[in-house]
């Protein structure tokens, strides 16, 4: 129930971002809003719900992007796998730790996508573009994930109290 709700919120945020983007003239203002939610679900609700969330968010991101079929889903699932391993070793104790994880995941996402572009297409044009936006994306996602964490954590507490 909570997994479905958080995943739904993530997809809703992605839709809003897509619609708002043409009106914001800054390219760097495109935070990754799906992966932080997937990370939250994986870290706090478990590996199973995390996988479901990763698949839904990956598919939604692909539907709203011009990325080749399967590429963003693949990248999201790889990040999920890394998060699933990390949740056994690390504990997310605050929203700031969560922001570091989110920013890190954006770096990993960019790196993976660049590698995928290179190996699948054998070209470097797209890689330069991905590298150009990697750090701004990570920074803006870090800030956005602080807000996301606070919001979802509050929602989580309300839902836990009710149940």
């Amino acid at each position, binding site marked *: 129930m909570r997994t479905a709700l958080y995943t739904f919120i993530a997809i809703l945020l992605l839709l809003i971002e897509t619609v708002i983007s043409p009106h914001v003239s800054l390219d760097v203002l495109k935070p990754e809003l799906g992966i932080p939610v997937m990370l939250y679900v994986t870290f706090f609700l478990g590996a199973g719900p995390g996988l479901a969330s990763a698949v839904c968010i990956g598919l939604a991101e692909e539907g709203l*992007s011009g990325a080749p079929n399967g590429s*963003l889903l693949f990248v999201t699932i790889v990040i999920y796998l890394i998060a699933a391993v990390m949740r056994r070793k690390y504990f997310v104790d605050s929203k700031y730790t969560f922001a570091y994880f989110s920013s890190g995941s954006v770096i990993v996402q960019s790196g993976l996508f660049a590698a995928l572009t290179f190996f699948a297409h054998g070209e470097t044009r*797209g890689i330069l573009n991905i590298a150009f936006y990697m750090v701004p*994306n990570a920074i803006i996602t870090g800030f956005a994930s602080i807000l996301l964490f606070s919001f979802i954590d509050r929602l989580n507490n309300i839902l836990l109290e009710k149940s």
Partner: protein
Amino acid sequence: MARSYSTVKAGFSSVFGPVLSVVSKPISSVGGIFDSYFNVVGAKKENKELREKYEKLYVENQKLVETERENVRLRKLLEFVQKRPNTMIAASVVGEDLKNWFRCVIIDKGSKHNIRQKMPVVTPKGIVGQVVEVDLWHAKVMVLNDTNSSVDVSVEGKNTRGLLEGTGQNTVKMKYVTKNDDIEIGDKLVTSGKDGIYPKGIPVGIVITVNKNKAGIFTDIDVMPYNNFRQLDEVLLVRK
């Protein structure tokens, strides 16, 4: 008797006088406060009403300006479509790619409106890109400056041809133009129609830099597209 009454009264009055003036001062100042309070309340209320009125008028004015701009844009679009009847499908841009790695826009027409893959997308200013993915209600358009985009172009009025490739930035690169080809800054580029996607003669952009000092046999050319891809509202899809 009457005289003594007057004397007593005058005495009282003369005592009351200073007392009255002492008492009246704070009272009058309080009265002033009340007066100014009521005035301020009135002015505040009036100010609030005027501010609301101003804001309403400002919003209406902004709407009118926006409507006027939209009107001009749509009129140009209509003129462009009327020149080529039954060859265009109009669509609105409803979203942009979620990732800044790609230059892709989402339009509000899909397979239900006879939109097909590889359909050229234009505006009255020039070329926008091509349809790369079609859903039932929406389609994704790869914009000219996407790193995966390539368009065969020729220089207007000259025999020079080249391939226009997206860079992910605002300008695009014209490639495979040899150093002895005739090209200079300010040349206008149009589609050559030889790539099998874009019809011949659609305006693309203008040459802004030509560098023949670079090593190799090809000239390094930067092109500024006519369209500002960040400000697309309505586009036209060309039926093949």
